[in-house]
């Protein structure tokens, strides 16, 4: 059953929230494009987990609070959010910008986490492996560079957003610039502290990611102690969208693995 969006107040900041399913709690942190609606991969994950999908401060229907400057701020916000909802043993999942946020959260405090899964996260800088400059791309370049299958890009480009949807896209793009313009899509301090992540971590990457090249998967794996990498072939920056079935299978299996 698709979840509907409600609003929740966390220490004075109102954000959008969707929640559905049953099982262990899974907190999903979205990427730069926001979460306009309940997507097929969410529906599938909610068959096995209690899936909680907040909309970041600055994005969509959420407030843009004065305190929001960095992804680190967002990470502290979600620690407050977890505390307020009384969540424990969480499977934390994040895509791209949301993956970066999840990593920033985990270097600060993992006590409420059971596992961590990140899809093509930004946040790290390998000097000779440039990350694509999404701020220089026009809407067509953005669509074409984010997915591997260009028929999917064609479908995305064929959708003309309504005025309200276009407003949300602009708001999300502004929020993204606030968080990631400079340093461009990384935090120079993140790599110093990734060793602190002490929960099983799953790094999932599309082999053909044109925004954040797959070389970053191994770079993250080297820095995060108990981590594993899964590469999905014929897939760009959005494995949960482009390869929904493969993604849900590997992501769910990792979370449900029996561990001593």
């Amino acid at each position, binding site marked *: 059953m698709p979840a509907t969006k409600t609003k929740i107040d966390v220490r004075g900041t109102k954000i959008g929230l969707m929640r559905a399913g049953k099982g262990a709690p899974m907190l999903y942190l979205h990427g730069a494009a926001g979460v306009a609606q309940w997507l097929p991969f969410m529906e599938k994950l909610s068959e096995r987990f209690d899936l909680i999908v907040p909309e970041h401060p600055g994005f969509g229907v959420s407030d843009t609070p004065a305190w929001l400057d960095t992804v680190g701020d967002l990470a502290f916000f979600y620690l407050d959010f977890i505390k307020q909802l009384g969540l424990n043993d969480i499977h934390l999942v994040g895509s791209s910008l949301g993956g970066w946020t999840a990593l920033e959260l985990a270097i600060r405090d993992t006590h409420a986490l059971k596992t961590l899964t990140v899809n093509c996260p930004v946040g790290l800088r390998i000097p000779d492996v440039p990350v694509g400059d999404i*701020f220089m791309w*026009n809407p067509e370049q953005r669509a074409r560079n984010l997915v591997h299958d260009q028929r999917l890009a064609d479908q995305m480009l064929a959708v003309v957003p309504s005025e309200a949807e276009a*407003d949300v896209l602009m708001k999300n793009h*502004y929020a993204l*610039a606030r968080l990631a*313009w*400079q340093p461009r899509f990384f935090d120079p301090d993140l790599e110093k502290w990734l060793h602190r992540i002490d929960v099983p971590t799953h790094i999932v990457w599309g082999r053909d990611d044109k925004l954040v090249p797959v070389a970053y998967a191994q770079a993250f794996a080297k820095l995060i102690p108990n981590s594993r990498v899964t590469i999905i072939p014929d897939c760009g920056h959005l494995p949960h969208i482009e390869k929904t079935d493969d993604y849900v299978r590997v992501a769910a299996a990792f979370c449900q693995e029996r561990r001593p």
Partner: protein
Amino acid sequence: MKFYFFHLMPYAHLDLSYTEKYETSWVKLPNTYYDREKGHALYNRYLDELEYADTLGFDGIGCNEHHQTAYGMMPSPIVIASALSRRTKNAKILILGSAIPLRENPLWLAEEHAMIDTITGGRLITGFVRGIGAEYHATGVNPIYSHDRFHEAHDLIIRAWTEPGPFRFAGKHYHFDYVNLWPRPYQQPHPPIWIPSQGSQETIEWASHPDRKYTYLQTFSPASAVARFLKMYRDQAEKYGYEASGDQLGWAIPVYVAETDEIAKREARPHIEAFRNKFAKMPFEMLLPPGYLSMGSMKRVAAAKAGMSMDMTLELLDEQGMFIVGSAATVRERLAEAQKQIGFNHLLPLLQFGTLPHELTIKNAKMFAEQVMPHLRPLGEAKTKAKAAAE
């Protein structure tokens, strides 16, 4: 009316066929297109042109700031203003403007401007700008904070120029334990401040505020937009409870004068078209990064600029009032008409543009100074005096 010879210092030797490979002459065009010997000759040529304008009787000579582009070779207007400060004797020196939010330390800028003001004995006219969108790609400064940093840097600079130091400054973007400027500016309380803009209501509300009354300068826009924004300034001043004078309003526009209309168009055509279609060429994402404008303004501008990337001919630029070209009589008539309708006292003709060579620049400047300027000079002043008499 007063006249200021304004220069952009383009890299005039740019291989114009660059557009076959690249979509812009800004930020992403490889600097292998730049030749250092040609650059050396160009800087000296352009400085000669600015110095020549001083001898022609222009009230001022002006430079500005752009980064990583063939459009203008002045990443630091401070260097150009400094070079001019000892070589000229009469003209005001205009920095239009310094992009203050791009500076990590705006106090350096306050110091540099104070030095130039002091060396010239008070000939500096200061301008503050945010820089255009491309600058935020070139410098990495986050465009989301562009307005914030502009206002905070402005407040810091004004306080540094006017308040006895040392004092502390604690802002969001700038923090200093010791603000204590040596030298303080020569002009008191500080050099005049002009605000060049392509037109925004927020900027006009801020510049026209009674605490500031900064001269607002509309740059490179169609005449109809110039009229609209300068009127907006006057209306805003009225809302604040005072009457704006023509001295608070200026217009910067490319101008070319020659012996006849036909000669003027023939001589100017390739150079003004290169200026518009090659040097100023830039994709939307580079011109307007997220946060550079408020979301409301961004929506309006995006709609208005839908056809903007189209190349423009001299005729279209002329028709839109984005370029004034013709015999001295034609140029006089066009400018007098605009002055009458819009009521500005400062005109900043751009007399070198794009690839316009030295000889034509000199001819243009001389004809403008001798055959246009003297006729238009009484216009604004007469009106101001008449008003003064009436009051």
